[in-house]
């Protein structure tokens, strides 16, 4: 299985975006960071004990699935939407959803458009090879509108075209829109339209059939979510790992029971995972939260206790 391969190799191959600020992007020295990257690190920490033992494989919208299917990457964390056909026909599994998103539109403020319903006849920049282009076709069709698709290959190109005015609207997942807008010279000149035209549950993907590896990826993510729920942070995780009153935390952090061994990873897997970049909330705030230039609100991605959808199944 993949787990053995990873252990033998000593490094996790993680497929990421070629460059989407906040989610996955290399800096001048080639160090990757971002919301998706943090999950890669957490998995590496959980399995190998070291968040640095990740090899990032930048994939384009077109090459990502093959990279996964062919074994070039062990997991794909590249704002990929979980869909029916991707799980069945393309033979992948989405063990968890790390970001609940939806497709939106961004337009220039001075265009006077305030609703997606006013976009009839507009040129729309759209990244090829994504679910967004299918959603877009469906949306305009069901609203009896026409549009002119302007195909782009990467987010960077989309930004360029949109900034230059080559398209009236730029469509992608709302999170991506926010990230993109944040990076504009004058973000206040652009607005993201209120319509969200699709459900875009984004999550890490693994190959179909390797359930053990899927469990590891899924539960590592849930460990991060649970960490937030129970107040386990990067700062206090070592302290808490020595034992607490809360048996759930004890089981999570390996103080009690041997959940790790059941999956074939060290018992302190969750400790390492949370220490790598903090719990889900910390990761969110550090990479895409409201204090970052991207400035995304938690919204659907808040804990279930806060009215969001992030809900970690029980660790027992």
């Amino acid at each position, binding site marked *: 299985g993949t787990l053995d391969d990873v252990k033998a190799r000593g490094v996790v191959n993680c497929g990421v975006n070629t460059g989407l600020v906040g989610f996955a992007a290399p800096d001048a020295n080639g160090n990757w960071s971002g919301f998706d990257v943090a999950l890669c690190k957490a998995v590496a920490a959980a399995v190998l004990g070291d968040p640095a033992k990740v090899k990032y494989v930048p994939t384009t919208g077109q090459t990502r699935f093959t990279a996964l299917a062919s074994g070039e990457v062990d997991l794909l964390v590249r704002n990929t939407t979980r869909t029916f056909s991707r799980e069945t026909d393309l033979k992948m599994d989405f063990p968890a959803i790390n970001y609940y998103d939806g497709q939106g539109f961004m337009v220039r403020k001075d265009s006077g458009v305030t609703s997606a319903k006013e976009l009839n006849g507009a040129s729309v920049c759209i990244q*090829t*090879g994504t679910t967004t*282009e299918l959603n877009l*076709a469906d949306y305009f069709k069901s609203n009896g509108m026409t549009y002119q698709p*302007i195909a782009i290959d990467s987010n960077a*190109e989309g930004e360029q075209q949109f900034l230059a005015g*080559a398209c009236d609207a730029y469509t992608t997942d709302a999170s991506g829109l926010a990230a993109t807008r944040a990076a504009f010279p004058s973000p206040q000149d652009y607005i993201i339209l209120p319509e969200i035209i699709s459900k875009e549950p984004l999550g890490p993907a693994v190959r*179909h059939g390797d359930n053990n590896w899927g469990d590891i990826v899924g539960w590592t993510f849930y460990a991060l979510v649970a960490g937030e729920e129970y107040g386990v942070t990067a700062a206090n995780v070592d302290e808490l790992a020595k034992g607490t009153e809360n048996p759930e935390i004890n089981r999570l952090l390996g103080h009690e029971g041997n959940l790790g061994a059941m999956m074939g990873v060290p018992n302190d897997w969750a400790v390492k995972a949370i220490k790598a970049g903090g719990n889900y909330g910390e990761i969110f705030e550090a990479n895409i939260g409201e204090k970052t230039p991207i400035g995304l609100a938690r919204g659907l991605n808040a804990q279930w206790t806060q009215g969001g959808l992030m809900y970690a199944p029980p660790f027992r």
Partner: protein
Amino acid sequence: MTSAPDAPEQGFRLSQLIYDTRYRSLTIQVVVLIAVMAAAGWLVDNTVRNLHALGKDFNFGFLWNRSGYDIAQYLIPYSNDSTHGRAMLVGLLNTVWISVLGCAAATVIGIFVGVLRLSKNWLVARLMTVYVETFRNIPVLLWILVSMAVLTEIAPGPNEYKVNPATGEASASMMLFDSVAFTNRYTAIPSASFGRSLGTIDTPLMPVSVDWVLVFAVLAVSIWANARFRKWADAVQESTGARPTTWWKSILIVLVPVVVVAVALGFRIHEPVLKGFNFVGGTNVSNSFVALWAGLSLYTGAFIAENVRAGILSVSKGQSEAAFALGLRPGRTMSLVILPQALRVIIPPLISQYLNLMKNSSLAIAVGYMDLRGTLGGITLNQTGRELECILLMMLIYLGLSLVISTVMNAFNRKVKLKER
């Protein structure tokens, strides 16, 4: 004739397979065949096993499924309800279309620059050299990206054509009598329609407009008539020596019938007008197309210019001197003496430039023009997850296109060559 006794029959020895020139090559070929078959078998076996492990099959059925995505540029009707197969066809036609237009433009540029590079005018010759060297030595991808960037970054947006109520002026203006507008998302050019249309015929591939068929038929007939007319002029020249002036008559013969038919059908030109977000009424040629076209033509044109120059230089100076000494003017010298000889040298490399342009058109990916790679090898591949099928099919189609181009051009080359000997 006295037939010598044949070499003593010694029966066949195994060592003959290696040492006997008669069998040796057979042995080697068998070994090579086995090796190639084994390699092919190995690849196929691996593929089968890999597919099996992934739970996939090898099946082109997806070509008949609904594609679900939109394509901005299509030459035959297409919508997201069409099949993947049709999307592939749209892409293929787009590839062919950009290749044909690209080759045409590159040839024009190449001839123009190649001739100017030999100009006596120092400045022009230098400028052309700079052009050729710059374009030849920098990747074509850069030229395509630059063309695209020029169009998107420098051309005005459609809304800049709007008349600003405050100043009463628009910040950008259309060109060519308000018929062409460069914008940062497309180039709006006039389109045509027929007021008294004869309707269209639906074929499975695309609806065919009877009007256009008629117009082209008439055009073909007039061109044929013009060829006859020129033959007649040749005959007159042969018998009297003086060639009747033909150029304006030729133009009349070609143009008048077409114009008459067009007028009869109520031919109208629609100039693009700004309405809402965009220009409507005309045809909007997407920038991705224009950028790809410009990048490919300028790049390939530089290579063709070199071929043209080499071709002309290959004709020795003595040839033009001899023609001058006979009293031929420079224009005639060019067309009767230099070009026919230069052409033989120019055509073979021209073929490979055409092939290169066709293959380079797959760089459409850089600007989002939906060619064969963009549809079949891009979105279809991605939406269906059929890498193996899509890429093999795509390579086969490109191979077919290459074969067609080289066959046609080689035939043309033979024709030009035959004239000599």
